[in-house]
C-alpha cells in the first residue's frame, strides 16, 4: 500500500490505520492520527480502512510555546 505518511510516500503493508501504525512501529506510541486531514480517534483506527495514496498524519507531544 502506497501511503503518504507525514508527508513522505512510503510502502506500508496495511489495510487499516491500526495496521499502518503497527507496520511503522508506532502502535504503542503516544500519538494521534489524521487520515486525509480528518482526525481519527485511537478507538476508530482498527475500523478505518486505508487506500493507495491516502495521507496519514501521525503526531506526538513536542515542545510548544
Amino acid at each position, binding site marked *: 500500500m502506497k501511503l503518504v505518511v507525514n508527508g513522505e510516500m512510503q510502502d506500508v503493508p496495511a489495510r487499516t490505520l491500526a495496521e499502518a501504525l503497527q507496520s511503522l512501529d508506532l502502535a504503542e*506510541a*503516544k500519538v494521534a492520527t489524521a487520515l486525509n486531514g480528518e482526525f481519527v480517534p485511537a478507538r476508530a483506527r482498527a475500523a478505518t480502512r486505508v487506500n493507495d495514496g491516502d495521507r496519514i498524519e501521525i503526531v506526538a*507531544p*513536542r*515542545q510548544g510555546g
Partner: protein
Amino acid sequence: MTRKSDFTLYGVKLRSRLMLGTSQYPSPVILAEAARASGAEILTVSLRRESARLKEGQDFWRLIRDIGARVLPNTAGCYSVKEAVTTAQMAREVFGTPWVKLEVIGEADTLQPDPFGLVEAARILSTDGFEVFPYTTEDLVVAERLVEAGCKVLMPWGAPIGSGKGLNNVFGLRALRAHFPEVPLIIDAGLGLPSQAAAAMELGYDGVLLNTAVAKAGDPVAMARAFGQAIEAGRGAFLAGPMESRDMAAPSTPIVGRAVLT
C-alpha cells in the same frame, strides 16, 4: 476581581500565575530545571509529526510527565479554522485534557491572530466540550465575541510572539481589564523582561504566559526564577492599590515644622 488566593482557570485552582512554554531551551535538563524554578503549574506543549525512527515525542512526553505540571496544548502554526480544530482534537486525545491554547494565526511576520478564524474555531471547540484559552489581541470586540463563543479565559498578546517587546498597548490592555473584571486575563506572548511581566500584573492581569524570554536567556533557570518573583511582586502591587500618578512634584517630607535657617 479575583483575590490573591483565588486563581481559577476553568475550575482548576492554581497558586502560580506564571504559565511557561517548553520550546527553544538549550537542553531538556535545562527546560526541566527552568520549569521547576519558575514555579509554573501549567506548561504549554504542542503536537508535531512523529518519526518512527527517532520517536522524539515519546522522550519529550516522559520529560513533561516527570516535571509533573498540568499541560496546555497549543495549536501553534495553524492558519485555518480546520487545522486548528483538528489539531485540538488530536491534542485532546494525546494529552488527555479538554484544555487548548487556541492559536489561529493570520499573518506570518507578526504571528498575530486571525480574529475571525479564532472566534469561529473557539465556538466549534467550546461546543465540542473543549476549554479554550484563545491567543488573541487586546481588541475589545473580538474579546466580547470570544466570550460569547464560550471562552472563560482570554489571552491577549503583549507584543508579537518571540519579540520581547513587552506590553505594546498598555491603554488597550487596561481597557480590556476594565471591561472584563470577572474573566481571567492572561498576557500571552511578547514579553522579554521580568519588569514587563510585573507591569502586566500591576494592571490587574491574572497571569502571564512566557516562553522565549526564559528559554533564550543566558541562564534560563535564573530567568525563570526572576520572572516568578516579578509576577508575584506585580500581583502584590496590584492588590496593594498603586498610588495615582501626577505630572508635578508633591513633597513627601512634611512642610510644616521645617526649621527657618535664613
